[in-house]
């Protein structure tokens, strides 16, 4: 037996293990995808096989319905709004907290980092009362503003760390050339911090996209429903037509998985960075 064969034999169990785990991970997704092409009758009689015939109406019906696209639009709008607001305000604050020395700075920073420990669920009741008082129910701002506020701590912690590492000489040079503090921030610091801004933006987008509790409470009318609300409602509405729910689920997964495919590296980097710093 050659050395190569022996090595291959020895690693065979390892391959078997990862392959098995891979199968367990992918089966639910694949099953949902294939089941979407069956009728519900086919699904219970022929669970494992390929659809015969392939029924495309489950998918096309969803795609032809206005409500799916409206939810996609409102999820996108809310994610973009949340991200712009979180990253914009957090960048300004992180700039001050990283590069100014002023009385109360550490206190402020501690306050923001303490926010890492406030989960949404803790504040949701009073938040709801507050939003009702301000008339922000059934209004996208009612979701965007709180999401941005709860996203601040993590974003500030990451950005502050990044801003601190930009050399001070750069700032001195800019100052000598007559750059104001804001000018330095806007024209030099932000362009240099593009990778970090990308990371925190991706975290904000994913967080907003998957949020459920807040939009569930804020949007009682369909107009602004986001994808997670839509999925839950659709399941309730078509409880007996399982194949149709599978098709809807698969279509609802597509944006998140596509986003993951495009931004995998930044997403994973951001999440591990957020976890180790937070």
């Amino acid at each position, binding site marked *: 037996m050659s050395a190569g064969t022996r090595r291959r034999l020895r690693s065979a169990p390892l391959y078997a293990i990862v392959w098995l785990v891979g199968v367990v991970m992918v089966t639910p997704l694949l099953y949902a995808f294939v089941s979407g092409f069956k009728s519900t009758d086919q699904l219970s009689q022929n669970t494992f096989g390929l659809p015969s015939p392939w029924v495309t109406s489950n998918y096309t019906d969803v795609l032809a319905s206005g409500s799916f696209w409206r939810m996609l639009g409102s999820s996108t709008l809310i994610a973009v709004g949340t991200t712009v607001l979180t990253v914009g305000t957090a960048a300004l604050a992180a700039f001050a907290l990283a590069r100014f020395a002023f009385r*109360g700075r550490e206190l402020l920073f501690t306050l923001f980092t303490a926010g890492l420990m406030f989960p949404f669920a803790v504040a949701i009741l009073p938040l709801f009362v507050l939003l009702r008082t301000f008339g922000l129910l059934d209004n996208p701002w009612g979701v965007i503003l709180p999401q941005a506020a709860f996203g601040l701590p993590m974003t500030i912690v990451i950005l502050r760390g990044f801003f601190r590492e930009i050399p001070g000489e750069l700032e001195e040079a800019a100052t000598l050339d007559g750059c104001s503090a804001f000018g330095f921030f806007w024209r030099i610091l932000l362009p240099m911090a593009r990778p970090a801004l990308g990371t925190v933006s991706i975290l904000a987008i994913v967080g907003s996209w998957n949020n459920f509790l807040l939009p569930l409470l804020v949007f009682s009318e369909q107009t602004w429903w986001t994808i997670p609300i839509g999925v839950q409602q659709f399941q309730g509405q078509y409880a007996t037509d399982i194949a149709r729910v599978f098709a809807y689920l698969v279509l609802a997964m597509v944006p998140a998985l596509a986003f993951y495919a495009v931004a995998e590296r930044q997403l994973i980097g951001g*999440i591990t960075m957020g976890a180790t710093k937070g």
Partner: protein
Amino acid sequence: MASTYVKDPAPAPAPPKLPDTGAGRSRARRIVDWLTAFSFTLPALVLFGVLVLAPILYAVYVSLFNWGGFGSPSDYVGLDNYSRLLRDPVFLGDLWRGLLLVLFSVCVQLPFALGMAVLLNQKLRGRALYRTLFFAPYVLSEVITGVLFSMIFAPEDGLADHVLGAVGLDGLGGLWFADQDYVLPTLFLVMTWKYFGFHMMLYLAGLQGIPAELHEAARIDGAGPWQRFRHITLPLLGPTIRISVFLSVIGAIQLFDLVWVVTQGGPDHHSETMAVTMFQFGFKRFEIGYASAISIGMFLISLVFALIYQRSVLRRDTEGALTTMRASR
């Protein structure tokens, strides 16, 4: 405004130095400087204060009242809501189930994630693909995950039962989420499917920070794979493991979406979590005062846990974690 800010490029957090207070600078000048710095933080501070801090303080206040949510709270009951909380079998059950979930995670999910991380840290063919695949469920919302698995574990006719039937284990399946004894383990299976990839990625990042020379040297000294894992990998991965345990505990304390979508806490409270109980009282039964007491309870539990954990476990890591992070960049 060139002199309004002080260069502070030190990478490590330093105590605040006040701007140069030499003779040339007046008190008014310093106030202007402070205002400049402060105005940068103002938008974030307003957002954070109004929508994070104020609601939490308001929850503390409301938890002292018997309040249905309309008008202003007037029926002051002192700490009654809290003493009711400590006698409420559902809330005590929430604590017990939370503890079970944490134990499941720490004893099963995290070791599994660590194992997969060690496996995928080796030169296996296709490992990049496996990493991508294992992490993928993390980007799906808990709602999508929940609905997907409520159909897969549908009583009698879901994929899970068909698979068990096909391999001759019909007896094992059954009601799944609808069974009082099965619901929590099934939920835990789903959580593992969704979250182990996240912990695996944390561990992989940690593993990459361990210098290969250490393993080389140990190998030359005759250490086997298990010994190398036990005496090199595990200790050096300590900070990462502790952070992942921390995140997993905090996650279990606030678990809501998944449970709400799949079981709403049922059957008969057997999958209920603190957040679900809070939601039931707050938004279904409109006992806002009592529900606020539950949220404050959740908050206190997270806070106490975080403080103790930081004191006793995380503190000694701070130094090490910082250097690892810098090295891995």
